[in-house]
């Protein structure tokens, strides 16, 4: 055999080494499976190790807490068919459904919930969202290691099907908090026998309407009906393929080709295109979230409320949503997004909200010059944002709006991890931040400006504000509480504690095949309420 023929053969043989892969993927894409563009990769199927809304979409299908969400994301009875709340608002008693079972047929017991809540708060579990259940008695103390005895947690099983939860203080949103994945039960019988691998496909058991049957990291999680779930007979969709995809323009092409039924996000630039070519498929609705810029109030000149006010006034919020972003985000002149429960309909607003933009710019110039900044002594600001197309556009627009005031803006973007590490360390001047509601209560947002709270990146501090929040936390009368909270919000806005820009919109596109998808302010859409039509 001649040399080169051999070398060619050798080359082919080498390339063939590449091809040693085995049969991959089950390819189980039956007609009644729904395909969802789900954003990031799922971190875990263990509800105590989650932190993202994309994970919630999976976890919320495969687990069910004492309470669960209805199609409008309101809390309704889940594994507990009924509950009683004591008059002082501190003790909740839940009665579990007799037919609540794990996917292996074992009954779901009150003990499973006790075990789950203890595991959530145990320091060695290192659950990232444990603090959402801090309203439970001693939860915070256990989670921070002040109490080591887990049995001190205010959750106990009265019998197999009765659970009692005691709170630190009355918490009006506690039933809502119980719908969160931190309150899902975990299968005690399985974890105790198989603590390391219980969460693997093939071993895991769940108590929700679906169970996970396949998980390829970086690709998808596939679920199928849980035959043991009490309402399985009413389920319309056989299973869901949650795709891990972060490139939404690639995802949108697949959607258009009919490969995806529901996208949980879409490229904003395509909004006009969708409205025109796929009418009715874009679901752009208010979302309980606030997009804002934070000032580092521990550093001059941002310790000066007038400087903050000037910068805030000069931002033309009417332009950002409709023009810069193109999806029409509503401008934010207050801190708490509209539509929050336990809050007055007309929340607080900045006093200059209705002033025409031209006048606002003039007043902003005056405020800055009073603070000593002007053409001779320009204010230099570094504006930071985490790397993202939308944040970039907003920052570019805001920088251009500040420029006429004689403010020189340097933009600085970093990956999300670096951005938030620096925010926590106070290493910034002004920076982009955002907050999505975890539960339906204004305290969620107002806490962001309280002294000593980790997420109060700007270290803005106001004694009266803190006092009002503390006062509200022990109030039972929700209407009075709402008024006190609104008073606090007004204080923060008057002092320009931060710079609210717009309220988030949830942006789904849903194929006309999918029925039962109901828009709601928490952007939670459980598969059990949907169906697929050809």
């Amino acid at each position, binding site marked *: 055999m001649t040399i080169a023929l051999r070398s060619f053969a050798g080359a082919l043989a080498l390339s063939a080494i590449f091809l040693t892969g085995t049969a991959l993927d089950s390819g189980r894409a039956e007609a009644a499976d729904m395909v969802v563009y789900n954003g990031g990769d799922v971190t875990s199927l263990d509800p105590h190790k989650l932190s993202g809304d994309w994970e919630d979409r999976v976890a919320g299908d495969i687990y069910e807490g004492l309470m669960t969400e209805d199609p409008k994301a309101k809390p309704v009875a889940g594994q507990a068919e009924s509950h009683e709340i004591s008059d002082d608002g501190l003790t909740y008693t839940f009665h579990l459904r007799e037919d609540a079972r794990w996917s292996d047929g074992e009954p779901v017991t009150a003990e499973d919930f006790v075990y789950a809540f203890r595991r959530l708060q145990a320091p060695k579990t290192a659950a990232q969202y444990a603090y959402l259940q801090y309203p439970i008695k001693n939860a915070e103390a256990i989670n921070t290691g002040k109490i080591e005895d887990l049995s001190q947690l205010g959750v106990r099983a009265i019998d197999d099907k009765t659970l009692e939860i005691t709170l630190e203080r009355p918490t009006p949103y506690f039933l809502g908090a119980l719908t969160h994945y931190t309150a899902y039960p975990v299968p005690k019988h399985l974890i105790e026998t198989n603590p390391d691998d219980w969460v693997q496909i093939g071993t895991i058991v769940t108590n929700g309407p679906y169970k996970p049957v396949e998980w390829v990291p970086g690709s998808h999680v596939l679920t199928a009906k849980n035959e043991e779930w009490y309402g399985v007979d009413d389920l319309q969709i056989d299973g869901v393929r949650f795709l891990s995809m972060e490139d939404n323009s690639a995802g949108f092409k697949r959607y258009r080709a009919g490969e995806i039924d529901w996208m949980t996000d879409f490229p904003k630039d395509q909004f006009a295109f969708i409205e025109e070519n796929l009418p009715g498929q874009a679901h752009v609705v208010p979302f309980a979230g606030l997009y804002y810029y934070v000032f580092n109030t521990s550093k001059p000149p941002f310790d000066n409320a007038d400087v903050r006010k000037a910068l805030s006034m000069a931002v033309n919020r009417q332009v950002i949503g409709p023009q810069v972003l193109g999806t029409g985000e509503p401008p934010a002149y207050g801190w708490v997004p509209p539509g929050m429960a336990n809050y007055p309909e007309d929340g607080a607003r900045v006093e200059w909200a209705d002033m025409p933009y031209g006048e606002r710019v003039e007043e902003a110039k005056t405020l800055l010059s009073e603070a000593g900044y002007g053409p001779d002594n320009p204010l230099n600001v570094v504006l930071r944002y985490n790397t993202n197309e939308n944040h970039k556009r907003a920052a*570019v627009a805001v920088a251009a709006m500040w420029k006429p005031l004689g403010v020189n803006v340097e933009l600085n973007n970093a990956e999300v991890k670096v951005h938030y590490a620096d925010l926590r360390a106070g290493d910034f001047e002004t920076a982009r931040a955002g907050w999505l509601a975890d539960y339906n209560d204004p305290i969620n947002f107002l806490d962001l400006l309280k002294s000593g709270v980790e997420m109060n990146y700007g270290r803005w501090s106001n004694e009266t504000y803190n006092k009002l929040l503390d006062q509200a936390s022990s109030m039972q009368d929700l209407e009075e509480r709402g008024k006190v909270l609104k008073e606090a919000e007004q204080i923060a806005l008057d002092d320009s504690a931060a710079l609210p820009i717009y309220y988030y919109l949830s942006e789904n596109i849903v194929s006309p095949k999918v029925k039962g998808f109901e828009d709601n302010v928490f952007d939670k859409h459980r598969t059990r309420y949907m169906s697929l039509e050809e």
Partner: protein
Amino acid sequence: MTLYAGKREALEDAFLDREMPRGKPRSLTRDAMRRLRANKAAVVSLFVLAFIVLAAIFGPFFIPYDYETPDWSAFRAPPSIESGHYFGTDQNGRDLLARTLYGTRISLTVALIATTVSVIVGVLYGATSGFLGGRIDQAMMRFVDVMYALPYILFVILLMVMFGRNVFLLFAAIGLLEWLTMARIVRGQTLSLKEREFIEAARASGVSTFPIILRHIVPNLVGPVVIYATLTVPEIVITESFLSYLGFGVQEPLTSLGTLIAEGTDVLEVMPWLLLFPGAVLVSLLLSLAFIGDGLRDAFDPKDR
């Protein structure tokens, strides 16, 4: 016409094992220039390149818009003669022509930085290795071989993580990873040069190692360095666009060709101008550099191909 297949192949083939010609080294360069002028593709490319470079440097002075100020009346505007936005505007209402010119400027700058760093390191390393010879040479070249086996792009991304957003620093660092081919060529040339009489004369008269390398060996490397640079610049421009795609581009409001194209790709149906104009500039830039590099290589390596 011989388009290069890869920098390493092109250069090593031409320079690694060739005997250095005896006689005046200058005449080699002059010969090469003569051959280059006869290469039509290379000559046309030279003009195209010159035009792009001049436009990037002086163009911004002649257009009414700058690259960072939004035109609040024209967001996402398609190209139009009346409004003066000849290339249209982007989603922030900024003039695309101005941004393309600035982007070209930035892309060329980072490419030049990386290339310069890699040439300097490569020449010094290769010349030192070749000149010292023996075990040191063996060890130094072994190190180069090892570096070739590293997954280069992974290290670029790690450096990105490390340096954060300082693009100029980053590309200096990329230059530090790119010098390997240069070092090997320079070593080869040095090995054949150092046996020559004038080096021995210098050594005999007591001149120490480094001055000899600098004064006598480096000037003989003009040819390979020029070719190397024309082949490296497009490589860096592509690396830059790859990093932009991953979201590691230059800081706003600055931009680069890679960033513009990465952004334009997402909207190619709804705002095609955002892709077409920067894309056309990038492709002409890379093509002209490729033809020039190729022409230079053929000119310096007159083997009939």
